[in-house]
């Protein structure tokens, strides 16, 4: 009988680069920057690492295929290294690989590192794969971009809950302005500027109704974690470390695209993935028990509907919760994107999942500076890769080891 991952694995060190348009460095330098901080933080040497996982997505414009970019860059001494690619969950997948590896007892200490160098494409936004997307998809898929795919959530959500377009647009704007207020306080964030709801609403349209400020940035970055078993952490003399409470993944079954039950207004994957994660972590009432969240806010509307799929907001009530400031850092609810989110960090795909965990790590260790949340209990991170009608959702829940 499977017992889940709860409290089996400890995170003993993490590192994260400054995210942004890092014109002066490539993926290799970013990996070393994150890894150096992580190693020092964990107090382990490179030789203590027995296996590693590399999360990276767009190898075409990035490091290339395989896990060799990690093993050769970090000069890892002929140990097993694996590359994971699962869209925006790639970083969390690397973490999942490392966590499961130590939980299985195969290794004592493992490394998970995510990296993405996006700013070598010559233009903003993600690369356009054209016919490389897939030999059949290319022949019939519409002319979709990421913002265009996610923007449709807004039209479907407004129609389903009978919400005037303008009301939804304002709530979406607040999702972004709230994250910017947090990002302002984070020296590692890419965008550090306060913006008002009005500015978001007036920003130029990218994909109706998403304006520029409804979209996350595009940046370079890397983040990593060193994990071990709880026993090993204790034997190393670690105190107040944090453990993994839940690691869940859910992928579309094709129903969203092909079967007329989904209304296009939310994520079926996240709905199911979060339910399983709460069960694994032993959480009964997430609205009360989750202390902070890092959601996959690739677009404001993604974050807004995700509140409901995470069962924090009731169906149809996310707009009201947002406008009530429930997700603001000091709104008295569940602070969301405390570090600034994808909105302010940008989204170097392979790095994002681990970047989110990094904020949780800082918060639990009381190292989040001005952003510090008082006495957090459970922290949740969420990644959503693909498009609303076909996607990969990953959810991690972490918290202090209490025993």
């Amino acid at each position, binding site marked *: 009988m499977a017992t889940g991952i709860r409290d089996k694995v400890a995170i003993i060190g993490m590192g994260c680069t400054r995210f942004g348009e890092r014109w002066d460095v490539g993926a290799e330098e970013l990996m070393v920057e994150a890894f150096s901080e992580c190693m020092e933080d964990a107090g382990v040497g490179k030789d203590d690492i027995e296996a590693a996982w590399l999360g990276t997505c767009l190898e075409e414009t990035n490091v290339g295929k395989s896990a060799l970019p990690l093993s050769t860059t970090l000069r890892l001494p002929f140990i097993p290294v694996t590359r994971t690619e699962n869209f925006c969950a790639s970083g969390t997948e690397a973490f999942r690989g490392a966590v499961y590896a130590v939980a299985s007892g195969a290794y004592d200490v493992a490394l998970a590192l995510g990296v993405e160098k996006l700013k070598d494409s010559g*233009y903003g936004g993600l690369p356009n794969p054209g*016919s490389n997307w897939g030999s059949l998809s290319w022949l019939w*898929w519409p002319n979709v*971009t990421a913002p265009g795919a996610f923007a449709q959530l807004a039209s479907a959500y407004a129609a389903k809950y009978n919400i005037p377009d303008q009301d939804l647009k304002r709530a979406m704007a607040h999702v972004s302005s709230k994250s910017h207020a947090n990002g302002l306080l984070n020296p590692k964030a890419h965008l550090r500027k306060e913006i008002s709801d009005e500015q978001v609403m*007036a920003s130029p349209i990218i994909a109706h109704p998403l304006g520029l400020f409804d979209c996350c940035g595009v940046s370079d970055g890397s983040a990593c974690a060193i994990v071990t078993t709880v026993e090993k952490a204790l034997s190393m003399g670690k105190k107040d470390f944090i453990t993994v409470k839940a690691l869940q993944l859910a992928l579309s079954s094709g129903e969203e695209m*092909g079967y007329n039950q989904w209304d296009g207004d939310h994520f079926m994957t996240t709905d199911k993935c979060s339910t399983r994660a709460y069960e694994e972590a032993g959480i009964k009432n997430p609205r009360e028990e989750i202390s902070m969240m890092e959601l996959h806010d690739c677009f404001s509307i993604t974050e807004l509907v995700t509140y409901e799929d995470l069962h924090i907001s009731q169906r149809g009530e996310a707009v009201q919760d947002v406008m009530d400031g429930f997700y603001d850092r000091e709104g008295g609810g569940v602070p969301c994107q405390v570090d600034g989110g994808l909105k302010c960090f940008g989204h170097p795909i392979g790095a994002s999942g681990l970047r989110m965990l990094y904020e949780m790590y800082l918060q639990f260790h009381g190292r989040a500076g001005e952003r510090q949340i008082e006495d957090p209990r459970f922290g949740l991170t969420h990644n959503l890769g693909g498009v609303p009608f076909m996607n990969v959702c990953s959810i991690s829940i972490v918290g202090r080891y209490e025993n």
Partner: protein
Amino acid sequence: MIGIKSYGGYIPRLRLNRMSIYQSMGWFAPAIVLVAQGERSFCNWDEDSLTMAVEASRDCLEGIDRSLVDGHYLCSTTLPFSDRSCSAMVKTALNLRDDIITGDVTTSLKCGTSTLVTALEAIKGGERHNILVTASDKREARAAYFYEMWFGDGAGSLLLGDTDVIAEFKGSYSVSYDFVDHYRGSNNDYDYMWEERWVRDEGYSRIIPEAVTGLFNKLSISMDDVDTFVFPCFFKAEHRKIAKKLGASPDQVVDNFHEACGETGAAHPFVMLISALEKAKPGDRVVVAGFGQGCDALCFQVTDQVANLPSRRGIKGSLANKKTEDNYTKFLKFRDLIKTEMGIRAEAPTQTAMTVLWRKRKMLLGLVGGKCAECGTPQFPKMDICVNPDCGAFHTQEDYAFQDESAFIKSFTGDLLAVSVDPPAVYGMIQFEKGGRFMADFTDCALDDVSVGQKVNLAFRRRYEDRERGFSGYFWKAVPIPGTAPEKVETQGIRFDGKVAIVTGAGGGLGRDYALELAKRGAKVVVNDLGGAQDGSGEGANTPADRVVEEILEGGGEAVASYDSVATAEGGKAIVDTAIDAYGKVDILINNAGILRDKTLAKMEPENWDAVMDVHLKGAYNVTRPAFLKMRENRYGRIIFTTSAAGIYGNFGQTNYSAAKTGLIGFMNTLKLEGEKHDIRVNTVAPVAATRLTEGILPPDLMEKLKPEFVTPLVLYFCSHQCKDTGFTMNAGMGFFNRVAILTGPGTALGGGNEPPTLDDIHKHWDAINTLEGAEDFPNATASIGPMLDAFNPKKEAANADTGSGLTVKKIFDGLPNAFQADQASGVDVVFLFNISGDGGGIWHVHIQNGECLVTEGTHESPTTTIKMGDEGFVKLISGELNAMSAFTSGKLQIEGDLMKSQLIEKLFKF
């Protein structure tokens, strides 16, 4: 009987106003104005001869069993492939049988009529029974050429057969010559034309009559036996002359559609013939002639069967479904006649795998998906395992054609990031009524006209072009059907779901209406009423509150009654406890309970005074305090006080009431400060009700409006989370609302600040002390001290007068000369034409020259730049509420002419 069984037409929706060609290119080719009448049709950027052929053929096969078709010929001089059978593509798109013959007939404008003759003869031979002949042309010409004016794009389709014909084939006569009026080499994009006079005199005028006369002789008929004579000829005068020469009167001749769509090449004899058949009566004789390197003439006689043809779009419907375009450069871009920068993003690879195209030909060209034999779920694409999660059967899919199934929009966007010839790229999820869905590109629509729930048709379009390899990929797109969108939600109506409200004095009148409306909008309501008589005396009968609760429950709402008095602290607490016990919290409190004890002060005994104070002022304290404590716990609250005009302005015989009511304003002013950080907003309403105050002043029809319903919306707005204002007092009644505020005059400082001012100083400066000019409304007491402290320093110049309020389009133009920045205008010589639509709109032009600005109402012949906008949007733009760039990208602001010059407007005018 052999002949035409059915027809179908397709003219692209887009029509170019020919004058727009002249407007742009008249400087270069002034003579083109001679043929610049009306409109010409042109393909959308994703259409070509092949897509038009598919659409015309689908129209033709309306109501026909497609499995009966045993041949298809596609006639066109502009097919997208030189070596790949386009008719085989049409056949696949139409899901026709595999064991049929197909062929492309091309290289002459008469290829359509020649194929008709050949196909009819093949049917006569008995080898085949039903042959579909489709003619289509997308005619290309270089910019600013007569032929660009003359040409149009379109397609027509005819099903020929030997049963159920609507027009019997009577015979044909053909002549063939190498008469080269124009030609196009295999490797050239455009026609090379010889002198028009020769083409007219030696070509059209000789060869068409020769073929028609030959036909008449062969059939032993004359023009007198013909009801309708159809032949294309884009020379308008020549068209008439040839007809006349052959003895046809003007009413026998079918118009050449120059004004409606232009000359559609090989398709044009079909387009004109179909138009004739649409009007024909049984027994009519129709003669059609097609010209090009010779001429074919055919004669048909319409049968009774024509009445049984199911209705269809045809040419008539195609011509009616149009969007006129005045933007010539858009036309040029759509036809790839101008090169635009498409950006690095457009450099993506575009190769097509022929193996995939072959395996998935039915899916891609025919929009064929699957239907599960086990559970009956239609699905797209067809895959090996059923998509229905409750079924999941393996290998049960049967072919299912989606192209004619009715569908509607589930979600959509207008994408400005996607590489597109016509941004924004509009696409979204479409769902079929009987099951199945897919994510589709939309076409032939504007983003503003698209909504969730709207119905769509499916259309065969070009999906991509691989220029490197000279390949075009085709798939199906959704065309939103105008007028089928469900009504859009403008306002949802503010809701109170999950909120708990207390309304005191809710047994009747205003309080009752507040309670009912709150409940209707989802709030759980504590209906408090002592149930006493009007003056508050006597034992509470519990009935008024109960009745209102009952009413709410009957309407499906939630409510509990409370009978406690607001006049005591215990009563107040009990009311709040009722809410906590029943619903666990309080979000909204409306202090509405009140009584009257009207007396002049002379007759006002202490008990009259105290009773009113107890209910209104102390009563508000008694309920508000316990409620406030609960709201603070939840960090949310909305508190409403009820004041009165009697207190605000004074009313004879109500000193007690006036004092209590105005006391509440003071209460609010401070409570708003204490509640602010907990999101507790406090506001006050002064309802205008039928009282002695209004009696005799108001006409009876207005008295009718002195009902609670005319006050309630404002009070409910104060109760909503949408209302973020606090500390406001509003008059509300009869549907009229205005704000009441305590204003503080600018005042004056006397005595220089060191010396105490004298009594005489006060007298002397009385006007300066009491003036309200420039009076201010202060948010709190501290703020009011500021001006006092600043009084000895000269005040900063007052900010510009408010321009935002009450601004109209007319006022903007009246004020334009004042907003003009002459210093920015040196060397500027422009005319801006403003065409502002809507009730408040109009047309103005503004001429700026020699540093002067002249604003004139009315149009201008040759404006540098024309600005088109709706009146509301324009006012918002000028008042800064709307960003010019976003107005432009969203299409609210349209700029024609010199776009660059339009950017001067921002510099030239300061509002």
